[in-house]
């Protein structure tokens, strides 16, 4: 899908590029997650693939069409929810979806049929006549997902669709996104919530500073780190005794140890023997990120700043 895509914004000449030779191969169908901190290049790659932005170098092919040379052929088959986008506040939910479909060129009968179906499917029937401005944040996002879901687009780009939402609202939006892939569409989703990527995406690319660091299923990513197990031990076990098992990080009331599977068992048994509280399991994507990038995903710095 993308081959060696590089983007150097004209205003940032002399600084590291926003994207540096990104190559991704995304099979049609399913949800593909792009994860990384702010400034990693997620939005830039989405904007290039959805024909909003030209790359400095590289090729992009969407469903067999060259997205750089022939954007019109691509645009009939895609839809996007941009990062921090908001719906037109003076429309009601029904109009938002229906008029979006008509604006894309769909006829009245088909737009009506699809609008009714998607509002039913996403549980928005009771809200259909409510003004978008009077909806909660989660409902607004669901309404926006309904717009692209109702379209005839085969590839949907969702750029951080749940940023700023509370956990309940995020789950509502997740449910809506899951429904998009029922009819074999492809969803390309960016997020800096790693649990979101883990919950939704069948394959994930981890980006940082404009480069793809890891790519695969969530299990692939976990398997590719040096220490794929995490053990948390409370402070009754001194840190010095833990260091021989792996990388130790201090956490609230204890220590977190990244280690190998065999060492994890041994460490857990030893800690239990010392009367400590222990929990153990495979690393999360957040742990993968920490091990690969060397800092937490939400440490407040952007990829660019960290560079």
């Amino acid at each position, binding site marked *: 899908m993308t081959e060696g895509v590089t983007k150097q914004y004209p205003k940032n000449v002399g600084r590291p590029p926003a994207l540096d030779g990104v190559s991704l191969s995304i099979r049609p169908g399913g949800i593909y997650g792009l994860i990384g901190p702010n400034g990693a290049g997620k939005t830039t790659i989405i904007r290039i693939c959805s024909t909003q932005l030209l790359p400095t170098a590289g090729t992009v092919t969407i469903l067999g069409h060259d997205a750089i040379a022939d954007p019109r052929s691509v645009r009939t088959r895609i839809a996007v929810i941009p990062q921090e986008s908001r719906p037109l506040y003076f429309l009601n939910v029904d*109009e938002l979806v229906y008029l979006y479909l008509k*604006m894309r060129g769909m006829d009245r009968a088909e737009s009506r049929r699809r609008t009714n179906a998607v509002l039913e499917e996403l549980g928005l029937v009771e809200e259909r006549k409510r003004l978008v401005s009077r909806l909660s944040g989660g409902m607004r996002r669901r309404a926006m997902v309904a717009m692209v879901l109702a*379209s005839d687009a085969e590839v949907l780009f969702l750029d951080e669709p749940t940023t700023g939402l509370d956990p309940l609202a995020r789950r509502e939006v997740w449910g809506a996104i899951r429904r998009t892939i029922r009819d074999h569409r492809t969803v390309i989703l960016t997020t800096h919530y790693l649990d979101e990527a883990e919950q939704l995406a069948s394959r994930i690319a981890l980006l940082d500073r404009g480069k793809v660091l890891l790519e695969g299923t969530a299990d692939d990513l976990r398997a590719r780190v040096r220490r794929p197990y995490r053990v948390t031990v409370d402070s009754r076990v001194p840190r010095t005794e833990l260091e021989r098992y792996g990388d130790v990080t201090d956490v609230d009331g204890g220590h977190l140890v990244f280690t190998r599977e065999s060492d994890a068992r041994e460490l857990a048994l030893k800690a239990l023997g010392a009367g400590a509280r222990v929990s153990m399991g495979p690393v999360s994507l957040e742990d993968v990120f920490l091990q690969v990038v060397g800092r937490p995903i939400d440490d407040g710095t952007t990829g660019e700043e960290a560079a």
Partner: protein
Amino acid sequence: MTERHRLRSVLTLAYLNGIVPMRTQPLFLVSVLASPLSFLFFVTIASHGLYLKYAVTGGMLFTMLSIGTSLQTDLTHYRTDLKLQDMVVASPVEGPVYVTGLALSELLYSLPGLAVFAALWATGGPALGATGTYAWPVNLPNALTIGFTLVIVWGFASALGFTLATYFEDVREIFLFSSLISLGLTVFPPVYYPLSALPAWAQTIAYFSPTTYAAQLLHATTSAAATPVGSLAADWGVLIAFTVGLLFLAAAKARWREP
């Protein structure tokens, strides 16, 4: 996209940005009328009714020129705040279709205001005639002249709004700038009063504003003296040249996909 699809997109955009807000918040219509009616009121009072004949068509011109500011505001707001333009770019809708749809929506939104001034024009002439004061002729040729002039002004205002929108990244900047635009296009040029009311040096400057030519065409329909045909042709020519020039500038500045 076929021509039928393009037309459907244009009409949908015009409906959603022109008709729906009118229905949702009818008070906006009153605010659209507030400025042009205020000017009409003050100019008429200050001139003891002498300039009413200019101010009626001037109100129509002011209303049409406001389309430029509204389009500029909407385009910038939809691009930078709502990210609607990004959604549209990544869809079958083409740039000219999007801009035409929004420009048409602004026209629809202005129609109630124009209707008020059209009613004043249609009834004001005969009513003044009945009182023995000067009445402007209400006839089909004058109505057509007003209609054609306003259509050209719509094109000019839309092209201006679109061009300016490409320079702004924040709607607040537009609010600061729009009063200057209004001063240069509707207050200083002879929109609500005759060109002859300005001193000679100011008349020369006024000719740099395209609205002067539009106002001359409109004022000719309510003027007692016949305007020379050559002068009207020159007004048409300059107004159309300004509009075409701005449309070219807008097309050259437009960036549907960012570089």
